[in-house]
């Protein structure tokens, strides 16, 4: 009987105050969605770091007018460099063009506008110790005749990681602000609910109903709303995985390992747990200290 009473009170409470409930669900969903995507981004970045960890390439691009002697000198030096793995990979202009065609096959007009001559030939080397990438890049960037530029994948990646990192921080900040708004709405919802049930509550206290019994409908009401918010947020993450990661960003699959479904699915219990705990705590604080129920 009591469980039935509590549940029907929850349903009535949510419906009575439906605009507030919807507002609470939306802010919760936005906050949790951002939290979820930040978490996913975090796992993704560490995966990418592992992915590239041992596979870092340093590319040494040669000048257009590089002479054969200069090229051979660089090649010999690379081959005798103790920090560099064998074999040293040479990419001619033609090979570079082939790769270019392959990479940009989605943009034929770009390929048509490009001639093999404008591309630089390059040496591509892998490092024995990937952590030395900066030193190697620096070494060949300076004092080497015929070297146009040295591209260190790690540098590029660390720039990418920086961008992802700041996106993640931004996401977490917005998630925090939205989370705060959600908490205030939880407090407000409970106050409104407590006000509209003040008669019942005063009678219950008078006749000696247990405190948990008086408070449970209020707490469950916001926990329930929080769980709906978590489900909505999870839906948004899943949609993001389907339409953005596996859709729009598909061409980036070569540098970005795909976001695994297992990682996305794990977000459902995580977000639901966060939502339930946070709303329960906010509800309890409101009931205990603000309404002093």
């Amino acid at each position, binding site marked *: 009987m009591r469980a039935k009473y509590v549940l029907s009170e929850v349903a009535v409470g949510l419906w009575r105050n439906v605009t507030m409930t919807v507002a609470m669900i939306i802010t919760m969903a936005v906050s949790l969605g951002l939290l979820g995507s930040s978490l996913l981004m975090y796992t993704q970045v560490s995966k990418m770091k592992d992915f590239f960890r041992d596979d870092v390439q340093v590319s040494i691009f040669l000048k257009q007018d590089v002479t054969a002697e200069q090229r051979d000198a660089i090649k010999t030096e690379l081959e005798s460099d103790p920090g560099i793995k064998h074999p040293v990979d040479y990419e001619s202009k033609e090979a570079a063009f082939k790769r270019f065609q392959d990479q940009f096959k989605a943009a034929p007009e770009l390929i048509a506008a490009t001639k093999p001559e404008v591309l630089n030939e390059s040496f591509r080397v892998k490092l024995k110790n990937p952590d030395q990438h900066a030193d190697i890049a620096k070494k060949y960037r300076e004092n080497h005749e015929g070297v146009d530029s040295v591209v260190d994948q790690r540098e590029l990646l660390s720039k990418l990681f920086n961008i992802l990192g700041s996106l993640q921080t931004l996401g977490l900040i917005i998630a925090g602000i939205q989370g705060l708004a959600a908490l205030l709405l939880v407090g407000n919802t409970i106050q409104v609910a407590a006000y509209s049930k003040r*008669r019942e509550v005063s009678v*219950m206290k008078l*006749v*000696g109903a247990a*405190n948990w019994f008086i408070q449970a409908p209020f707490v469950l009401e916001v926990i329930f709303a929080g769980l709906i918010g978590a489900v909505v947020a999870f839906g948004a993450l899943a949609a993001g995985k389907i339409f953005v990661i596996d859709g729009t960003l598909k061409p980036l699959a070569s540098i970005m390992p795909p976001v695994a479904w297992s990682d996305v699915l794990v977000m459902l219990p995580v977000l639901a747990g966060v939502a339930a705990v946070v709303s329960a705590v906010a509800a309890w604080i409101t009931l205990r200290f603000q309404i002093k129920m």
Partner: protein
Amino acid sequence: MIRLEHVTKRYPKASRPSLDDVSCEIEKGDFVFFIGPSGSGKSTFVKLLLREITPSKGKVVVNERDIGTMRSWKVPNFRRSIGCVFQDFRLLPNRTAFENVAFALEVIGKTKTVARRVVPEVLELVGLGGKEHRYPHELSGGEQQRVAVARAFVNRPLILLADEPTGNLDPDTSIEIMRLLDRINRTGTTVVMVTHDSNIVNQMRRRVVEIEGGRIVRDQPRGVYG
């Protein structure tokens, strides 16, 4: 049943205490009027008995338990031993007489089956047989107060605490309510009634405790309003 030992209640920011070193004992089965002008400390007394507040000094002992030091989570259980009636009835407007009384049972964990058995009995006892399914707004003031008494009594409490129960009622209806309280008292329930209705006090000739300025100024076994 109820014992106050040198109870002082001082509210913060108040210049003088609401109750000042009050001692008093009420035996099981007593019927006691607490009278006194507004602000004399009567409401403080009621709140202390319900453990809505705790004394600043002294002890409030109800049914051999010091309720001043009682842990707050034990308070609900304690309140089940006290029935309460107020001037403003405090009924739930969207529930019938039956539902109002049943609500009090159900929220303390009694089943619907128990409610269906007990509620009609108690409504019959307070003289509302046949009006179980009326809503409060369909009942007269006296009838509403009877519902409130039924709700207070349905758990068979040891103590019935009535805070100006006739304050909103005309003299004839007030007397009917008093008869009802008297009948409940005869079942062995201790009745404590706070009032400033002199007619009623004079008619009933029960024990009268007069409070003034936070102190007991009179305690008479078969008193009048004075």
